[in-house]
């Protein structure tokens, strides 16, 4: 009897232990996603994150743990984002946060990631200051990761492409920089001013304008007055309006550079096809196989949400995957262990191979730019489609301009 009782007790105890360890294993990995749900760029962030989580969960999760995405709409506001971040950490107990494509918002969240000791990755902000702050005070700010190219890298990417496409192919010699006045364009403009002359494009003028500008007529007239071969853009908060006015006014100079809204697949519709001929930098694009994962992702996204992802949809999707990978390697969701694991990230996702710069690099925790890692692409709107024109290994088309554009040396 005693033996039976003992073995029964033992079995029960074992069962309890097993059950509790199973319960532990079943604790979900909670990822808070704070994004601009009303903006085309931001709306893709929670959607792409959810898609990645669903795929990972369908394959059994991470060591038996499911990924749970908790989303917050920040109404494009820094104050709302900070409140969402506090709520995510303090009430919803998330393990890590993915947030925003607006540099001002990310810079507001960075000290909160430090105070609340919660890892945080941005899928789309660009300001150099994000990763510079990590470098300047690593122990405090190490929780922030910059999951998108810095403005400095973006400027470099535009210059690398301009060298091949504009200087070598079209023999262009002069440029005017046109950028909106925002946190992310300050380092971008410094990058442009530095690298454009090096590739052989003389900068004739530099126009910065308020992001709430609606009438671009004086700006285009001023640019035309200095007769440049190309307008190098740095625009994100604006996009539709300057593009439509550029076409309506038949400004005979091509636009080339960063134009975040042009990355949206609805851009041709929003501009009534004024987008034709616009050349913009992206980390990926519909139908462009940057890696074998790019096209399956866009197709799955389209099937689920009815539209193609914005640029930060790609990065948000990759981020969920490499967070899952980091949790697996760390064997834990403990903040410090997760940070250490994320620093060792080497993940081939939809935009290329993601690795982060280390502690000693000026852009600590920003994704590495370069061949074999992430170089970005140049795309152009042609016949209402976004086609890759650079680099040559993924380019499907040659540059093509609407008739009002005068590119003499074809």
């Amino acid at each position, binding site marked *: 009897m005693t033996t039976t009782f003992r073995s029964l007790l033992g079995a029960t105890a074992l069962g309890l232990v097993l059950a509790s360890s199973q319960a532990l294993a079943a604790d979900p990995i909670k990822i808070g996603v704070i994004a601009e749900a*009303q903006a085309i760029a931001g709306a893709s962030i929670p959607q792409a994150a959810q898609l990645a989580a669903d795929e990972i969960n369908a394959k059994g999760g991470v060591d038996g743990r499911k990924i749970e995405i908790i989303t917050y709409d920040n109404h494009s506001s820094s104050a709302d984002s900070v409140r969402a971040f506090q709520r995510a950490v303090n009430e919803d107990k998330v393990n890590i946060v993915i947030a925003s494509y607006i540099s001002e918002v990310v810079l507001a969240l960075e000290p909160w990631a430090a105070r609340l000791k919660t890892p945080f990755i941005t899928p789309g902000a660009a300001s150099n200051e994000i990763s510079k702050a990590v470098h300047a005070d690593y122990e405090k700010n190490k929780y922030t990761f910059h999951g998108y190219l810095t403005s400095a890298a973006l400027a470099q990417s535009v210059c690398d492409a301009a060298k091949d496409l504009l200087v070598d192919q079209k023999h262009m010699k002069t440029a005017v920089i046109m950028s909106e006045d925002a946190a992310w364009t300050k380092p971008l403009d410094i990058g442009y001013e530095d690298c454009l002359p090096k590739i052989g494009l003389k900068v004739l003028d530099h126009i910065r304008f308020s992001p709430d500008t609606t009438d671009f007529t004086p700006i285009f007239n001023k640019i035309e007055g200095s007769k440049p071969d190309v307008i190098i853009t740095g625009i994100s908060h604006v996009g539709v309006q300057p593009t439509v006015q550029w076409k309506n*006014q038949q400004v005979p100079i091509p636009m080339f550079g960063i134009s975040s809204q042009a990355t949206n697949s609805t851009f041709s519709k*929003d501009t009534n096809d004024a987008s034709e001929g616009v050349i913009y930098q992206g980390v990926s694009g519909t139908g462009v196989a940057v890696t074998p994962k790019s096209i399956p992702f866009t197709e799955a996204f389209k099937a689920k949400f009815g539209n193609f992802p914005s640029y930060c949809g790609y990065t948000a999707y990759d981020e969920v995957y490499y967070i899952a990978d980091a949790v697996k390697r760390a064997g834990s969701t403990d903040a410090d262990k997760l940070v250490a694991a994320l620093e060792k990230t080497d993940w081939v996702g939809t935009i290329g191979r993601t690795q982060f710069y280390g502690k000693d690099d000026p852009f600590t925790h920003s994704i590495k730019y370069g061949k074999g890692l992430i170089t970005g692409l140049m795309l152009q709107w042609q016949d209402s489609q976004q086609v890759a024109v650079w680099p040559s290994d993924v380019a499907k088309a040659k540059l093509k301009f609407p008739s009002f554009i005068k590119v003499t040396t074809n």
Partner: protein
Amino acid sequence: MLALQILIDGFAISALYALGATGFTLIFGVSGVLNLSHGAIMVLAAVAAWAAASVLHLGSYSGALLGVAVAVVASFATYFAVVQPIQKSRRIATEEKEIFILTSTLLWGIMIQELIAYFFTNNAKTVLPIVEGVVNIFGERTTKNEIFTAVVCCVSIGLLWLLVNRTRTGKAVLAASMNPRGVTLLGLELGSIYLVVWGIYGILAGIAGVLLGMFLGVSSYSVGPLTASAFSIVVLGGLGSVSGSLIAAFVVGYLETITAYLISPAYRTIPALLLLVAVMYVRPQGLLGRR
């Protein structure tokens, strides 16, 4: 050359400002209502015209008409759902009604703005232009759309002038703006005059919104700045004075254009706001204000 550019561009934008502000000031002149949902109604018209082309695949004329029609509906909705209940309420003291209307139209505007952002995102939209292409005016390349905008604005304002000064209904509206009690003593129903005014307002705001969508483009973010610009033009010109608003619209439009060309596009709106402050100091009733 630069002077000609400023002259042409300034005219188009000023005419657009004038049309936007006219309806706003007319409503205030006749019924004492400061409609702070003005920007939202303009944006709604533009977004409806955009959606007509992009979603329903209508042509540019039908799209524009639909935009104006939506603005008229929105204008009546503002009157019946927001303004009239407050005007008729017995629980709100008469002297507090103005501030109630001010706040409620502001909230109404925010509701419209959020709905637009919810259904159509807060990214900018542009309305399919009715006329495309460019012409040369003394060597200055000018878009036909810019000329079209200026012409439609001037014609609309001209028609409004004819309506107010040459028709019986218009004269009743004018009389109501001068002395509402006198009008009722003459046996005219003030309620029906208000209806006419809100109808005219809807058409004017609709045309201004659609033209703005064609010329510059709009987004849900434009709601606040549009209301603010109409408000400052009307205050500058003198509350309730249509001719004052017209003059103020051209002053603001040209001041902005000159600043953008000669100083920097980044400082475009600043001098006009400084002027507003200065005028408030020297002449608080505005340029042509009666009180």
